[in-house]
């Protein structure tokens, strides 16, 4: 009997050992091995969702590329003149286009790091989906890949606009930035720049190639089907719903327009932009917000006009810390009264009453007084500060799609792109008409519309102000200046402008990239 016991035990143990190879295959519960991550559609969906989640990092579109750093560089925000000597106030550094201080360097390094780490994720995702054994319908697979290619182009474009050359020169032989399309780490070695980095022309070619690739894949985008209800005022369950929170087909067209305009191919850019404005004119997919609803709903993101935005669940808490803090040295992003009222919202007409002007444009109504308390010993350039309520939305259930939504591309930009093309082509009347199509939906009376006799210079000035009024917190204005090569920018602290030079437009590639 005793021996039996031992035999049974030994037998069991022997069995155990023959099978121990399987026994050693343990899947971690809070992590997923790559192989499994691409084994089913659900896991793949989670990986794609992860790409968007990386993009809402505060170093990318959850902050620095939308509401904070690039907007500081565009002079939306006030800063203390004494800031430099008493602390390393990053708003001051960025507003001065001083990229060499430790804090500014660290900030800009994070954009670079998170940007390229997201790109590695995108590349790994594209490889994973391509090699996946999962049973995916053709439509889904195309969409899953198409969004990734489009995101790769979108992110690369903003890295190019931030760190890239000024001005864009297609003939330059300088290797400027890496366009990353590989999921393999290329070890640092001599010649990294020659092999991995691209010239401006190569970079844009690769970018446009990704756009073309994505265009082919996004032919199945539900947003193209008018019956799909892919954009609604109420968030919908479903992976292919809420398409304006995803890199959809029209977002790709908008991106194409932006890229082409940036490199000076204006006519093609206008053609791409027109695809979207045609929809608006036909009242399909994207349509103008009703002015009275905007204020009533606190819908300053103009939800139905947004072509592309990102779902950011930290939206409100980030906004609270950026706009509702107490002292200016703690990275509080507030606007100066002079800048807001005199630089940005004054200038449609000869109208002198600032109050009235601001009351007429519904975009001005998002601005309210800040409860900012100046820090001891800091000299302020003005007395009143304003904060935007654009990102403090708490919507009702019937319109909850505005919640946690960071807009990144909207229809008005598509009108501006066409207007600028028309202006450059000498067709000022057409340019004015396109700008006024936006103004009709923003300002109550026609006295503030752009005059049909406006000159090219007046149209440019109007466009600049429109960019400031329209895209607050969306990260477009700085790149607008860089593209049109502005030599002066609104001061941000007082009425008037400040000069900006070539070196100010070039954000240096981080030391960590160069030194390793």
């Amino acid at each position: 009997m005793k021996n039996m016991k031992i035999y049974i035990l030994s037998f069991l143990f022997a069995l155990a050992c023959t099978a121990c190879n399987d026994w050693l295959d343990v899947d971690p519960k809070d992590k997923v091995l790559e192989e499994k991550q691409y084994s089913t559609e659900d896991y793949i969906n989670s990986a794609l969702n992860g790409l968007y989640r990386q993009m809402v990092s505060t170093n990318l579109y959850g902050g620095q590329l939308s509401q904070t750093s690039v907007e500081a560089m565009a002079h939306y925000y006030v800063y203390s003149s004494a800031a430099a000597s008493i602390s390393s106030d990053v708003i001051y550094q960025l507003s001065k286009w001083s990229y060499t201080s430790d804090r500014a360097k660290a900030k800009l390094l994070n954009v670079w790091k998170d940007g390229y780490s997201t790109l590695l994720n995108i590349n790994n995702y594209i490889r994973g989906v391509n090699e996946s054994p999962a049973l995916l319908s053709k439509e889904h697979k195309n969409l899953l890949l198409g969004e990734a290619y489009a995101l790769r182009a979108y992110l690369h474009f903003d890295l190019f606009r931030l760190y890239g050359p000024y001005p864009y020169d297609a003939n330059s032989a300088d290797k400027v930035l890496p366009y990353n399309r590989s999921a393999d780490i290329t070890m640092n070695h001599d010649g990294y720049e020659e092999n991995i980095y691209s010239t401006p022309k190569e970079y844009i070619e690769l970018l446009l190639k990704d756009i073309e690739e994505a265009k082919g894949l996004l032919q199945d985008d539900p947003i193209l089907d008018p019956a799909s209800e892919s954009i609604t005022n109420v968030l919908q369950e479903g992976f292919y719903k809420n398409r304006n929170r995803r890199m959809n087909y029209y977002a790709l067209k908008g991106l194409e327009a932006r890229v082409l305009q940036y490199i000076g191919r204006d006519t093609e850019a206008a053609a791409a932009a027109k695809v979207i404005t045609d929809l608006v004119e036909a009242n399909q997919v994207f349509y103008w917000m009703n002015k009275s609803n905007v204020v009533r709903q606190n819908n300053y993101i103009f939800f139905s006009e947004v072509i592309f935005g990102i779902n950011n669940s930290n939206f409100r808490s980030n906004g609270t810390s950026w706009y509702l803090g107490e002292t200016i040295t703690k990275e509080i992003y507030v606007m100066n009264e002079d800048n807001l009222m005199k630089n940005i919202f004054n200038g449609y007409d000869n109208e002198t009453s600032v109050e009235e002007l601001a009351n007429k444009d519904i975009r001005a109504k998002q601005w309210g007084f800040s409860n900012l308390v100046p820090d001891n010993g800091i000299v302020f350039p003005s007395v009143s500060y304003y904060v935007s309520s654009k990102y403090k939305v708490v919507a009702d259930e019937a319109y909850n799609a505005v919640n946690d939504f960071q807009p990144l591309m909207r229809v008005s930009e598509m009108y501006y792109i066409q207007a600028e093309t028309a202006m450059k082509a000498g067709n000022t009347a057409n340019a004015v008409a396109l700008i006024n199509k936006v103004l009709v939906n923003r300002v109550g009376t026609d006295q503030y519309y752009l005059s049909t006799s406006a000159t090219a210079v007046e149209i440019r000035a109007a466009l600049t102000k429109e960019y400031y009024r329209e895209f607050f917190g969306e990260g477009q204005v700085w790149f607008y200046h860089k593209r049109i090569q502005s030599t002066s920018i609104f001061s941000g602290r007082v009425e008037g402008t400040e000069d900006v030079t070539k070196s100010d437009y070039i954000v240096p590639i981080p030391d960590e990239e160069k030194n390793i």
Partner: protein
Amino acid sequence: MSKQLKRLNGKAILLLFFAFSYIDIGYAMPESYENQQQKKITITGTVVDEDGEPLIGAAVSTKSKNVTAAVTDVDGKFTVEVDAISETLVFSYVGMKKKELALKAGQTDYRVVMDIDATELEGVVIEAGIIQRNKMGFTGSYKQVNREELLSVGNINVLQTLSTLDPAFVIAENNLMGSDPNTMANISLRGGSTMNITNVLNDQTSNPNEPLFILDGFETTLSVVNDLDINRIESITILKDAGSTAIYGSKGGNGVVVIETIKPKAGEVMINYAGDFKVSAADLGVYNMMNAAEKLEFEVLSNRYGDLTAWSTNADNIAIYTNHLENVKRGVDTYWLKEPIRTALTHSHSLDVSGGNQDFLYQVGVNYKDVNGVMKDSWRQSFGGNMRLTYRKGNFSVSNNLTVSFTNGHTGSWGSFSNFVNANPYYTMRNEDGTVSEILDSYWDSYYSLGSESYNPLYNALLSSRNDTKSHSLTNNLAFDWHITNQLRWAATAQLSSTTSDGVNFKDPKHTDYIGVDYTKRGSYTSSNGRNWRYNVNTTLNYALSLADVHNMTFTGRAEAQSEQKNSGYYVITGFPVGVEGIPSFAYGYLEGSRPSYSEDIDRSVSFLMAFNYNYLYRYLFDVNYNADGTTSFGRNRKFQNFWSVGAGWNVHKEAFAEEWQHFLQELKIRGSYGINGNQNVSNLSTNVYSYYSSSDIFGTASYLSGYANPNLKWQVVKKASLGIDAVLLDKRLDATLDVYQTKTDPMVVGIEQKPSSGVSTYPVNLGFIQTQGLEFTLGYYLIRDLARQITLNVRLTGHTFHSEYGGFGEALENLNNAFKSDDNYSDAALNPNSLVRFQDGNSPTALWAVRSLGIDPATGREVFLTKGGAPTTTFSIDDRVKVADSNPDLRGVVGFSLRYKKVLANFNFRYSLGGYKFNSALFNKVENISISNIVYNQDKRALYDRWKEPGDVTQFKGIAENLVVNTVTQMSSRFIQRDNYFTAESGKISWDFSKDKWLKSTGLKDLRVSLSMSDLFRLSTIREERGTDYPFERSVSMGISARF
């Protein structure tokens, strides 16, 4: 397949219950056993060795039955009952010749003298944890410490005692946490095997050089060993070279510490009690702070108050100065250091009951330890119990050992000791009305618009902040042992172990950290918890063969499977109302943006071991070990890894020609081994891993690439070679062991920093190696060895020297070497302590790199440096760094003596360390580099007295005004690297043994020992530094009692 294992598990649990059910039977047994006996003759006696020393644990059997009838007790005494006076008693004892004693009629009390049997020594066993080795035939390098040796050095902490006894077992001194009872030691054996880049890369991995701890055959953790009751330990074996650690395969790279607890012995009921009472006090002599008058003088010299004669323009500062001066004149000179410390009493008790007969043995023990730290309100309590039952039937035995332990650690609100060290002495702790103000001192420089404030450390100390940890663990070991034949033995053991730990860290809302913070964010409460569940089953087959009595062979085969599941999580809540002592329900909410964290890991491993040992007449020895390890942590593609070792040895004293040397040479063994081990403390990635974002959104869950793997990565392997000599000479007066070794970790796994545009910050590659050569020795000599009169004097010297160096890196780690230059935590690279470290081929990991300094120019008071090329300069450039010194000492060890005079035994050990260097941070931060905002803190006396004042002063330190007025920094130069030779009285213990005293009998005690011991009584050092920054070091005196009933 896991189904089978579950069944096996079930089986183990079933058998466990069997074992428990024996408890009742066990107690009933002795009675019925006695009732069966009739007409017995009781024989008593004492068994001693040639020197007259009693032999404990000698087995007494009757020749007719050939079964052990009794075992001698601690006095060598035995009592047996025989059926007839014609019986012959047989005595056996390890290392002694068997002795037969024919009983004589009329005599019932005998004195038996046993003789040493040289050949029997071959039976002495080295406990290697998972298998046992024969001492004479083993070729590995090890150190075995028995209970007596352990207790002769210390009473309380096992780890501290081990480091005294073995020179290769090194506890790194923790200058930050001093003698904090809740901080675990950082341990390495033979200098460790891998590089530690924690400081440079902010890596959170725990000590990668920590050896493996094995308790009763199973893996355990450092904290379990730290809390282990020293009285429960039977022996500790430290396995050092590949020959002895190869059996642990992938886990043995850093060496193995094998601990065996006491097993019950047959005989009458033994009740043992051991108690220890320790009084400790903080060592405040190392803090060299200014007194009130000195500090004020220093402040005036450093221009804190500006021009004291300019009444019209500087009235504010003059008023502040006058106020401070009045305090000094009033006699205010607060000795802040005294406030947070106390004289701490630590006591521990352990009670152990054991006994049984040859069929059934039991041992039950409980222990309690209450360690109080020298800082107020810091303690660690542990309570444990264990029950071991063994049932034997013929050649088969089953035993079960159940252990439970509870540990509670607590650190109160006193915070870092440095807050008290740094408080200005011309302020009182309390205001006149007894209240305690929040802010102690504040300073405002209107010129630089710079200000600073220092808080009253007592204010925070009076709040209800706390840091508590609790852990409970339950471990059950079940073992089967079957001597199938004399040669063949089968054993199997199973362990189930569960550990739960909880931690609470509460910071009071009134803490000065929350000044100016919104009420919803004041105070914080962090709750963390961990659960660990492990099972391990293994089976061993042992075969011993002796051919023609000359070829002795043993073969061991072993298989083991282990699974460990670890869960952990934590959450942080904040916003506490004042006056609530960390009750979570009163909080405002979770920390903004935070979510509960959770992690779950399952680690599984299997291991197959084959060990073969051969010897020819115990003269020529040969060992070979082979281990195949499979673990989940190797990754998908290579689950198994092979480890092996070979060893050879020569027992010179066994040779025929050595016969004639016997009068001076009793033992001489020359041995060597070579083999490879792995180091599992270094994590490894072989497949890409995705992690989930902590919450989901409208699109569902989201995952991201959290670990980017290198599929070509090879496992980090440690190659070890070792050569040693063991000798016993001069009529056993001299005992010497000498070992030389070389370990080479090649390849290493190093995270190479990448250009961020690649998408990752570091990438693991196989790169470089680290090679260590070392020598360790232990010498013991009996100056007096009069065993008959019990007077002995033994002196000991142990030493350990080693040198490590990197190789094969080339230029690959230059970025790591320069990482300190762009460290966000330091505004100036020249102030970053990481600049002292460099990973460079041909250089030691402990080398100190700094710019050479010629000292202070007496004429100008400015520092003169040497460039890399050796030219003097006054400009500091961090790129002029060269290797200045090495913090690893040339030689370290312990020198000690033990004196026995009759019943008194004195044992003293002194630790020495020679040739090491150290960066003196007290000089760097508290003598120089006192920035303008640090003026609100107290400073080192040398900042006032030893600094340059006027041309012609030959000093070691810059002028006071150099740092403060001009506000320039002092860089890390060789000026602050000092020789760190020291000599400390590590432990001293005197014990009295009253067991032979007649008066003892009348008290009912069988044995009584009393001891008095001291630790860290003094310290002589060539460096004057501040030791114990956040927690002071302690000195202690303790008294121990051990009694047997």
